[in-house]
């Protein structure tokens, strides 16, 4: 990536040195093409998008880098692409981002003392739910047959029917 930028600069130098009159004419499309080539190489790497999807665009309202077209997001994407080109691992890239911008930049919060509850919570809820469920079902099997309750219900329903048919005043 860096070499492309240098090439762009050289091209511009060359252009202005050779032909002042046509320089302004030439430079814009040439630059555009180069930049386009650069963009293409950035975005054709799926790893860039994968990482960009986990990072928060700091100037947007709750958007990932991948989704945003803000200048900052584009810079981030380019930076990720450069680091990938430099042979950095995903972990290294993420660590770089966190060192610079803090945990806020990560959409997957890191596991640490202040987030134990966040990560452990769902598991706790699931255990709690399972416990309540088991207790309820076990209490039922201890209660044995569906005798008293079923009768009570039949009663209840019959009264409901009667009530809805308007035969019996509500007690």
């Amino acid at each position, binding site marked *: 990536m860096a070499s492309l930028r240098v090439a762009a600069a050289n091209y511009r130098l060359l252009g202005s040195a050779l032909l002042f009159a046509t320089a302004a004419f030439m430079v*814009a499309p040439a630059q555009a093409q180069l930049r386009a080539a650069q963009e293409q190489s950035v975005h054709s790497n799926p790893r860039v998008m994968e990482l960009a999807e986990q990072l928060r665009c700091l100037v947007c309202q*709750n958007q990932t880098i991948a*989704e945003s077209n803000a200048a900052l997001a584009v810079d981030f994407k380019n930076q990720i692409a450069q680091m990938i080109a430099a042979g950095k691992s995903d972990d290294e890239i993420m660590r770089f981002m966190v060192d610079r911008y803090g*945990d806020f930049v990560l959409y997957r919060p890191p596991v640490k003392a202040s987030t134990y*509850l966040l990560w452990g919570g*769902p598991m706790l*809820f699931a255990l*709690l739910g399972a416990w*309540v469920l088991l207790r309820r079902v076990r209490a039922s099997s201890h209660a044995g047959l569906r005798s008293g309750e079923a009768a009570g219900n039949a009663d209840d329903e019959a009264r409901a029917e009667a009530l809805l048919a308007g035969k019996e005043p*509500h007690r």
Partner: protein
Amino acid sequence: MIPELGHLALILAMATALGLAVVPLIGAARGQTTLMHFAHRAALVHATLVFAAFAALGYAFWANDFSVKYVASHSNSALPVAYRLAAVWGGHEGSMLLWLLMLALWTLAVSVFSRGLPQVLVARALAVMGMVAICFESFILFTSNPFSRLIPAAADGRDLNPLLQDPGMVLHPPMLYMGYVGFSVAFALAVSALLSGRMDAAWARWCRPWTIAAWASLTGGIALGSWWAYTELGWGGWWFWDPVENASFLPWLTGTALIHSLAVTEKRGQFKSWTALLAISSFALSLLGTFLVRSGVLTSVHAFATDPKRGVFILGLLVLVVGGSFLLFAWRAGRFAAPGTVAKGSREFWLLTNNALLCVATATVLLGTLYPLALDALGQGKISVGPPYFDAVFAPVGLALAMLLGFGAWSRWGEAMDVAKLRSLAPAAAGAIAAGALFAGAVRPFSWLGTLAVAVAGWLAMATLWHVVRRLRGSGSERWTTRLARQGGSYFGMQLAHLGVAVFIVGVACVKSAETTRDVPLQIGQAADVAGYQFRLRTLEDVQGPNYQAVRATIDVALPSGTQIVLAPEKRVYRVQTMPMTEAAIDSGLLRDVYVSMGEAISQSAWIFRVQVKPFVNWIWGGCVLMALGGLLAFADRRYRLVFRTGISAQPSAAVPAAAE
């Protein structure tokens, strides 16, 4: 003049709500029919007054009255009329008024359609809704008055946020609020039942259609919002686990649990206190959502601290309503104790499991939504909790729920599931294997979660369809059409909604594991190949809209089938707010969407385009539509209509003072 009349109507509405909240309660306590009957008249007057206030604000928008501050900040004379009216709920004050209007209409509906219920129950429920109305009326009048004047008047308005200038945004808020606020009915009925200490099958049967109606609107509202985000935000996402989205999803989860627990309360007389708790929680979460969205606490805890007036007010309301009703619950719910039995594999067993899972899901989403706020408020640093977290913790619960759903429909009340029943689920198992294999074979790279999800969807779809087939085929000699006619709407509603869940899961799994997204730079005449589709930029042109300027790209797309289509995405800049907006161009299909949006300009003749191919993405909203339609079918069940009709004729007998206490 008209805005002042609107303001006056709102003040009078609050006075009426005061009467509605107090008089029927006295009547219920003393057993005086006249006082209780007052609730019906008050509900009518109240709804009329709130509607008048709402209409006055609508008129101010229609007439471009920029001397009204709210109109001046949210409209513009160049804004098309439809959006000018939708702008009524385009900002804080107006959306609170819409909230109130929905509440007033639901209250009126309860008053009109509940005449067959015991009068005490209705009187108390209407009074509770009156209390909620007072809360919101005082909130609007004291902190968020939409009728405040701007002196001197503005020459023109600051325009509606361009993001909201979309047909989806016209419909989304009313539908969402209808659902949100609709849970106030179940809430009011539950509080009323707690007050009287009685909750029986009749109560549950009354509560069901109201809850289902609210749930169906909420489902539709959330789906519309998601679809709007997909078409309008320009990045092709459909759900971001944004706190605002979660705020609407939380009451949906508990509302779903409530619908199912109400079924048990009606049919078996069980889970009574649980049902009451869910009814209270659903509305409490609706209020919490309102607090989160309206107090500014989401943008930043500090934004809330700098202008805390509104936030503190809603927080106060939240504490009052939620705290009060939970106290009442703790005090009275003991009376509903009906342990009863839950046989393993019986219908109530599956519904209990359903409720447990839905509550785990609710708690999880709530935790993820509030955690960053709490951490920040405690000075423990700022973190972001986003899709990677929610996807990871929600997917297991959601899939487990969908899998159990397949068993649920085949179970019977009070009966353990036997082996024969399990055997009749064989087609469902076959469906799971077929769907999973198909997905694993077609999608590269292989995705475990995607395959599992699609297998679960196949299981659920087949379990549902096979049940309907068996029900219609029966064993006797009747024609299937006779059986079809005899089967109630709630049966088909349930099956349709469950099928919707399967369709939804297929959509999500396919989009998550098989979509292609590329940002491609294109010059005029240049082409790019993405996922077998060829995109060639033909032209770039300037377009003048009524209140915006735009660059429109015309792109020829060659489909893999060889057909050519043309897509024309736009990048708009709205004149007043100078905000760039991305109008994506989408070729929608049953099996895939081709989605093109404009990123940023490279030069006069070249842009970066975001090109996406999204398989089965419409199944996501299709599934939601099926769920909502299922709700409507269940709502339209004759059983409930019968209740309404016999109810009206039975009114005198129902007008007997309560002796329950």
